[in-house]
């Protein structure tokens, strides 16, 4: 049975609640952004209202008093808005945003089981009050007073309504043993049946209160021909001897009070009427209007029950006839399954971007998954089991087994496993929308603070990425957007002067390209001040004074560790975090970030990230005695160029000509300092691979060893970042194998001459940290 209320039987749903809050808040933020951009569609307002409403309802269930209190006010304001009693205007949007913040924080507090300060959120409440104290609120107050005052209006005749007044003060005639005798006259109206209330149930309930005697009045029953099956023809008189009070009797009739004529009198021993109460009227008892019914029924002795049953039977029969007798299979599973949640391994950094206080004790650790995806998984596991059984059977046959059939079984097995893997991965894929939707808010707040006019355009919000990537994306993206707002875009005055529109634009886009996701942040601001960056870099010792850098290299200095344009640090993009941290974060995800600046025209930040952090389709290539993995989606083709198309370069490396284009070829063995690798493209194999920037680079290897999916093991986590190598993996034979970083490689210079593999490898690793800032982020274009 259910535990008592004070045990909080619903505690287990808190996690669900907070997850839901997070979703609702994210939606809300997006909708608020729409409001701000001038989309006042009523559906937007309704959606915001519903979100607050749901949060309030849940908060109530868990007794988060502050949250309930605040969301109630907030909801009220939103209600005014959606009813059109208040008009959406700038100030109001401001208040909505502020209220949204407070709401998010309060959710955070509740989640952390913390109690916010008493005054917390008062400013938002004051603002809300301010709006509500306008004309709109008066209208509302009147309306609700009306509704609350006499919900039964229209149903009650004047005399009856009057008689309802004094129920609380009526002394019940109490007989010696504590029982009172009530006489209840109950005449349902047809509306009662229309509301699907059952007199039978009311009668049963009355009988639970005490001893009853029932008289049924069938005098209004017409002839069979004249009978309308859905009309009400009976009325009842109940005599009830009960130790319960009037409240309990009222409660029995609560749902039906407006759909019947009800008179309740209290009698004393001599059957003298002590008090009379006529209905209809609102039967609310002081402590209990948590529920009610719109119709009413009364109590009857068993003989009467069948009569009532008869009166209702036609309706029911009619209803039943309409119901096709279909199978009831799995009715419960279906609707529930849409909510199927799949647990994911807890990620230590997961959810760091969530609004509100950062640490939580009821942290969301589940993903919502489309039910189709789950079904597909189940199917696939089924296939897997069948194939496995088939194989087992074949193997049991021992020598008689057919190698052919085992072979094809293995093929099938690997196909199924691959499919399964793909589908499991897809579960973790989520649209970047959840991160993008936070950005309008940031743009809005920051541009307001800076007095700049900015429009944010987002493109490709539905692009899907692994959930962990999404989670890790929020912080860097926020930071970069802030940076663009702060440093990139000019003030309206400056823009006018430069002959641009006052309103600046930031485009935030996401797309899939070559198995990675590319996110770009493009502003049409002033671009990077190269002179200043250059100066600063020298000043900070990031580069040598005599270093010759291309424009692009200078632009990318902003990512260098130790470089922060201190002069320009503001409370917005400053925050003690530089772009170097952004780069580090992105790199730890196996991603890359670069910047491209067009003086006077704008700046483009480009983030490339792997779609998933877990597996990769790889081509295994042999180089000298080593094996490396080349990500398949970056491979264009593999060629062995004829001698005439090869040009060896002085100092190592070569160029080959393919269909009229010259392509740089990097001998992998030379890059990594391996002994014995092929140096001549016409003798080895050249793997043509595409970099993120769309450039083609040739990788000279000795042989192709096959294609397989590999599980990615981070090099940074387990060792340290190594230039030219994206990560590592473990092959079927247990050996560790490196996954090549095509972009990184394309930027590497072929070392002059050959050196011993050991010393070279070490120096590559060591030098890496130093020149990473300088070279690794340079855009590929």
């Amino acid at each position, binding site marked *: 049975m*259910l535990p008592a209320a004070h045990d909080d039987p619903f505690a287990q749903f808190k996690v669900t*609640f907070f997850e839901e809050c997070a979703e609702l808040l994210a939606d809300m933020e997006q909708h608020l952004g729409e409001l701000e951009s001038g989309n006042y569609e009523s559906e937007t307002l309704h959606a915001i209202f*519903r979100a607050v409403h749901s949060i309030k*309802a849940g908060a109530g269930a868990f007794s988060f008093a502050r949250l309930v209190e605040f969301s109630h006010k907030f909801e009220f304001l939103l209600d005014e808005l959606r009813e059109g009693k208040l008009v959406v205007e700038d100030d109001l949007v401001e208040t909505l945003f502020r209220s949204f913040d407070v709401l998010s924080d309060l959710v955070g507090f509740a989640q952390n089981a913390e109690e916010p300060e008493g005054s917390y959120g008062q400013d938002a409440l004051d603002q809300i009050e301010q709006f509500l104290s306008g004309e709109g609120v008066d209208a509302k107050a009147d309306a609700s007073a009306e509704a609350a005052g006499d919900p039964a209006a229209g149903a009650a005749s004047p005399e009856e309504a009057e008689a309802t007044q004094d129920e609380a003060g009526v002394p019940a005639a109490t007989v010696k043993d504590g029982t009172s005798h009530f006489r209840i006259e109950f005449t349902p109206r047809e509306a009662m049946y229309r509301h699907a209330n059952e007199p039978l149930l009311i009668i049963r309930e009355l009988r639970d209160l005490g001893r009853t005697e029932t008289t049924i009045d069938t005098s209004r029953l017409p002839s069979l021909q004249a009978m309308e099956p859905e009309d009400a023809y009976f009325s009842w008189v109940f005599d009830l001897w009960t130790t319960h009070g009037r409240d309990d009797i009222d409660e029995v009739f609560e749902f039906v009070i407006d759909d019947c004529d009800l008179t309740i009198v209290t009698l004393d021993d001599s059957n003298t009427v002590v008090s009379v109460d006529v209905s209809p009227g609102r039967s609310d008892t002081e402590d209990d209007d948590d*529920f009610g019914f719109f119709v009413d029924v009364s109590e009857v002795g068993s003989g009467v029950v069948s009569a009532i049953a008869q009166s209702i039977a036609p309706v029911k029969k009619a209803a039943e006839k309409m119901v096709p007798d279909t199978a009831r299979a799995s009715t419960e599973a279906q609707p529930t399954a849409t909510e199927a949640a799949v647990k994911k391994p807890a990620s230590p950094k997961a959810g760091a971007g969530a609004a509100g206080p950062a640490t939580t004790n009821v942290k969301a650790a589940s993903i919502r998954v489309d039910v189709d995806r789950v079904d597909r998984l189940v199917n696939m596991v089924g296939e897997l089991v069948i194939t496995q059984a088939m194989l087992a059977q074949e193997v049991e046959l021992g020598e008689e087994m057919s190698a052919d059939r085992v072979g094809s079984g293995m093929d099938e097995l690997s196909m199924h496993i691959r499919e399964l893997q793909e589908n499991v991965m897809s579960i973790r894929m989520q649209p970047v929308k959840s991160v993008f939707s936070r950005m309008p808010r940031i743009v809005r707040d920051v541009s307001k603070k800076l007095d700049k006019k900015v429009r944010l355009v987002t493109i490709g919000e539905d692009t899907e990425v692994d959930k962990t990537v999404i989670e890790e994306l929020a912080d860097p993206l926020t930071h970069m957007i802030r940076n663009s707002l702060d440093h990139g875009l000019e003030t309206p005055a400056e823009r006018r002067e430069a002959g641009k529109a006052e309103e600046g634009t930031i485009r935030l886009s996401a797309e899939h390209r070559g198995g990675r996701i590319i996110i770009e942040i493009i502003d049409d601001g002033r671009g990077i001040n190269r002179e200043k960056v250059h100066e600063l870099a020298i000043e900070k010792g990031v580069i040598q004074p005599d270093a010759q850098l291309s424009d692009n290299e200078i632009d990318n200095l902003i990512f260098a560790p130790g470089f922060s344009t201190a002069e320009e640090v503001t409370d917005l993009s400053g925050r003690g975090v530089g772009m170097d941290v952004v780069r580090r974060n992105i790199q730890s995800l196996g991603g890359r970030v670069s910047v491209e600046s067009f003086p006077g025209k704008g700046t483009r930040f480009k983030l490339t990230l792997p779609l998933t952090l877990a597996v990769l389709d790889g081509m295994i290539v042999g180089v000298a005695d080593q094996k490396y993995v080349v990500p398949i989606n970056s491979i264009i083709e593999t060629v062995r160029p004829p001698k005439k198309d090869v040009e060896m370069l002085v100092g190592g490396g070569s160029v080959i000509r393919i269909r009229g284009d010259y392509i740089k070829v990097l001998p992998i063995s030379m890059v990594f300092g391996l002994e014995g690798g092929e140096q001549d493209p016409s003798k080895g194999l050249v793997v043509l691979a595409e970099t993120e920037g769309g450039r083609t680079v040739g990788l000279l290897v000795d042989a192709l060893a096959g294609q397989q999916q590999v599980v990615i093991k981070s090099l940074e986590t387990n060792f340290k970042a190594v230039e030219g190598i994206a990560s590592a993996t473990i092959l079927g034979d247990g050996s560790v194998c490196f996954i090549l970083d095509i972009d990184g490689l394309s930027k590497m210079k072929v070392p002059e001459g050959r050196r011993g593999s050991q010393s070279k490898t070490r120096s590559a690793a060591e030098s890496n940290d130093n020149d990473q800032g300088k070279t690794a982020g340079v855009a590929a274009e």
Partner: protein
Amino acid sequence: MGKRILAVDDSKTMRDMVSFTLKGAGYEVMVADDGVNALSALKGEEVDLIITDINMPNMNGIELVQNLRGDPRFRATPILILTTESDDGIKQQGRAAGATGWIVKPFVPEKLLKVVGKVCA
């Protein structure tokens, strides 16, 4: 035989709580997250009671009640609306649409079961 109840609410938390409470008391529970899905969940299904939230996307609770009452199959099926205490006007709308009764949320399990027991014999 256990009674079947359809619980309709766009909030998963609420759905979970309603269905947890009802299942604990031996009811069979179906759920839907808005009016439209409630109607499709009811295709070819019979239920003894429907409990619905009011504020939902696509089709709200009032519209759902109206739809159900317009369907001969559900004319006599009790429908309870789940509403917050601030929704006084809503109760009357629900009543006009043909709902059987209302339950205020948040609710305690005992209360929900009591009300459900009232309409679901």
